[in-house]
């Protein structure tokens, strides 16, 4: 980039003698390099992709004429911004009234100015609430090819209490997306993963409510995601599990499309319902921000991911999402079957909202570990009301 040594005449004020700052520049450069050598950022790409998908593109989030779903999208952005207790100043991530005014199915017409204060795409028109298809086509990719992408996928699993209660857990899994990677292609790939919980049923206890069902089609418009299924699922589950199984698909499809809480409809050939009880002639959606606990498990661990191998040279950072009382979670690190460390962490916000938590385990000796994050009952302080355990290795 620029010359690394010596002073920078171009950079310094002409009033100063060349070389006047040579020494302090060298010292400063070295000090900064030395000082940051100890900073080993943890891996956050999955979290970034997830948050971005959940929040959806800025140019699309204001797109519908319906104000109803703007609220949860704004909330999601706010949660993302609050993840570290931080607030944005100029980088305002709130939903902006700048809808994509695309009348055709394949154009991305926004060409906003991004310089300066970076306030996001310029408003180029007002929303037409008509359902223009805005599947972003990524150009001239040859159809039929596919690419592996990290996709957000939800599963129905036990929250970790004694009953057991079942709720949704989110994973970020590699999925095969056919190209061009349209919203439909991504949603289809993510739904396929969601409907095949078998790889995780032994380790995580995830249910397999869709093991005999396939996704046959996905259509995405600005105000509806329509999912075609090969059948409505077996009527073998209790009502709450049926509801969660449907919500699993709703959350997965919305997250994969990444444009906010677009209502989801299901189509089942020859059947008017899912599991014989949930009608297909109505919209399904995520609950409101303060009702997320109805669907989501209280504790998620998002990093490390399952069986991830981490380098021994770096401190291990555990991250996750939690809907817990007073935003408090406890954790226990085990190596093999031996508990080696424990502690508490505070999420960015307490129940009923979902907050982000994060804590450091320091550098760990090579070995196989598991991290268990749990919430204990407010009544007695010992009964575990929710927990999640993730295995990982350090090499």
């Amino acid at each position: 980039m620029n010359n690394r040594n010596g002073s920078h005449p171009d950079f310094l004020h002409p009033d100063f003698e060349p070389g006047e700052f040579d020494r302090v520049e060298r010292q400063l450069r070295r000090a900064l390099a030395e000082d940051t050598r100890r900073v080993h950022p943890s891996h956050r790409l999955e979290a970034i992709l997830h948050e971005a998908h959940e929040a959806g593109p800025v140019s699309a989030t204001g797109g519908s004429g319906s104000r109803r779903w703007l609220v949860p999208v704004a909330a999601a952005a706010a949660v993302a911004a609050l993840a570290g207790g931080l607030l944005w100043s100029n980088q305002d991530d709130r939903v902006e009234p700048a809808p994509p005014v695309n009348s055709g199915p394949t154009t991305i017409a926004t060409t906003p100015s991004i310089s300066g204060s970076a306030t996001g795409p310029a408003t180029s028109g007002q929303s037409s609430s008509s359902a223009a298809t805005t599947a972003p086509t990524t150009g001239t990719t040859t159809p039929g090819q596919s690419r592996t992408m990290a996709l957000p996928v939800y599963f129905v699993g036990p929250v970790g209490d004694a009953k057991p209660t079942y709720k949704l857990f989110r994973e970020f899994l590699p999925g095969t997306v056919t190209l061009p990677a349209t919203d439909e292609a991504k949603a289809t790939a993510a739904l396929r993963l969601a409907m095949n919980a078998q790889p995780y049923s032994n380790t995580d206890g995830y249910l397999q409510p869709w093991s005999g069902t396939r996704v046959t089609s996905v259509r995405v418009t600005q105000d509806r995601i329509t999912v075609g299924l090969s059948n409505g699922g077996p009527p073998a589950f209790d009502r709450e599990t049926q509801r969660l199984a449907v919500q699993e698909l709703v959350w997965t499809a919305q997250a994969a499309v990444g444009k906010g809480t677009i209502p989801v409809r299901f189509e089942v050939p020859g059947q008017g319902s899912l599991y014989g009880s949930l009608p297909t002639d109505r919209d399904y959606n995520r609950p409101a921000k303060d009702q997320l606990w109805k669907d989501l498990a209280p504790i998620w661990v998002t990093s490390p991911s399952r069986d991830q191998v981490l380098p021994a040279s770096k401190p291990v950072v555990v991250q996750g999402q939690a809907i817990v009382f007073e935003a408090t979670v406890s954790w226990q690190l085990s190596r093999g079957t031996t508990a080696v460390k424990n502690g508490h962490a505070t999420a960015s916000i307490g129940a009923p909202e979902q907050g982000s938590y994060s804590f450091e385990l320091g550098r760990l000796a090579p070995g196989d570990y598991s991290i268990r994050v749990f919430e204990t009952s407010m009544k007695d302080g010992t009964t575990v009301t929710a927990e999640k355990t993730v295995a990982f290795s350090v090499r």
Partner: protein
Amino acid sequence: MAEREPGGRLRPTADEAVGELYAAHWKGLVRLAWLLLRDDLAAEEVVQDAFIAVHRRWDSLRSHENATAYLRRAVVNGARSGLRHRGVEERYLTREQGEPTSYARRTEKSAEERALDAETTSSMIVALGHLSQRQKEVLTMRYYLDLSEAEIADALGISAGSVKAHAHRGLATLRDRMETAS
């Protein structure tokens, strides 16, 4: 992935672009944020939010150059907000003043690292902490990220002349402090 604009365009998806930007800039930007914030997790959060914002704006950012510039702006702004809202800077300065050699707050230093100008580094970092936020930003971007005057001006939303002026005052103050200290 190659970017062809505007004809038979083949643009990377937001996922791909962010993946590449992440590979190129994650570590450097977290370290930049850390230099400004002095807080590991806060630094990661700020940069994570910047990457999320880029992902969400990829359709309008359109190129890695624009996105990189946007990332820098977002990180610097995020670090500023972080400082305002958390007071981490004050905590850091208090801590540093109490323990002059604790700049490497993280862990085990090797004997040779210790020997090698540890004291100079330590007092330089402390001195940097006493500069104005703007001066600190300019000097950090210049001497840690090796950015040009124009890039710094863009990232901070100030003129090139102001960048020069801040760099000068900052360097002069650092020099004076270092000379006094030694």
